[in-house]
């Protein structure tokens, strides 16, 4: 039912209905902010990137071939906009080296939280993205799989792999003891 209503919204948006597109934006805003945040490492920049991605998506809607893959298409645009922003800000000379983006720490973090933050920062782009989608807003697996264009099993696999790497990082740093 939700899928059908989304398809109807996408079709209406392609026909130029701004309200339908706005509704789609409302649905996917948290997911897009999470993706952009995983790339940029900053919540405010992430929100800007998500909104810019929506604007670009609206003007490129006629290029969308698979309407049922709207979320995945939107995520790709958001990812690219975020990378462009990152490049424009000149934080990195090499845009592929996104793992260097540091998630800023907050006051009151204990040592373990700080170590987890570092561990997440060291993850690869795909693993970091899935971690952000899952823990940003407690997003369910089916929505993550829709946004990333992969199966729920693959989402589960990526999450497990990411967590394992975080634990390994913590183990190396001396925060956890015992066999892995």
């Amino acid at each position, binding site marked *: 039912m939700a899928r059908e209503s989304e398809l109807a919204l996408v079709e209406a948006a392609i026909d130029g209905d*701004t309200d339908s597109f*706005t509704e789609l*934006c*409302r649905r996917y*805003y*948290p997911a897009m*902010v999470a993706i952009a945040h995983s790339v940029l490492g900053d*919540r405010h920049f992430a*929100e800007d990137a*998500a*909104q*810019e991605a*929506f*604007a*670009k998506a*609206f*003007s490129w809607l006629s290029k969308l071939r698979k309407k049922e893959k709207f979320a995945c298409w939107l995520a790709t645009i958001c990812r690219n906009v975020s990378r462009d922003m990152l490049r424009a800000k000149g934080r990195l000379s090499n845009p592929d080296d996104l793992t260097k983006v540091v*998630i800023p720490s907050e006051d009151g973090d204990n040592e*373990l*939280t700080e170590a*987890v*933050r570092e561990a*997440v920062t060291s993850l690869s782009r795909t693993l970091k993205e899935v*971690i*952000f989608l899952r*823990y*940003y*807003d*407690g997003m369910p697996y089916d929505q993550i799989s829709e946004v990333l264009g992969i199966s729920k099993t693959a989402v589960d696999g990526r999450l497990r792999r990411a*967590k394992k790497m*975080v*634990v390994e990082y913590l*183990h190396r740093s001396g*925060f*956890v*003891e*015992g*066999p*892995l």
Partner: protein
Amino acid sequence: MKLQKDDKWLDSALSRVISSDKPQFDAERWKEQYLKQELSREKTAKITPNVWSILIKSRITKLAAVVVVVLAVCWLAVSDRGEPEQQQTNARAVAVTPETPAELMSVISLSMVFRDGDMEAMEEQFDKAEKLVGPGLKERITIDQLICELEECKQI
């Protein structure tokens, strides 16, 4: 800290690091700030398309241009150096390939043979034609007679 079998501690640690308040989408602000800007940018881009800059920026176009230049240079080098040899080869090919007397005596054949080996080669060509016309033609014949013979061969 001991490593526990369940990863609830990790979930809560990750939630602490990543989670934040749910972002709210402000549609009005978005339309005003981003959509209008993007649409006007698109419009401008459609009005003044700079084809040359697109071509220059495109890697494929650059690569294609380099390939074309390299091929042109190679072709020029090969054609300059190999032309006389190529002509000689062609002349020999024409001189050898003809099988009927009519073909041997054709203007093209004779001219190619003459270009290739002067009068001697032409005489050889005539001898070949004579042999092919038949065993009855052992004496010297006039050009008119030869042409008559050739016409008959053609008809056969």
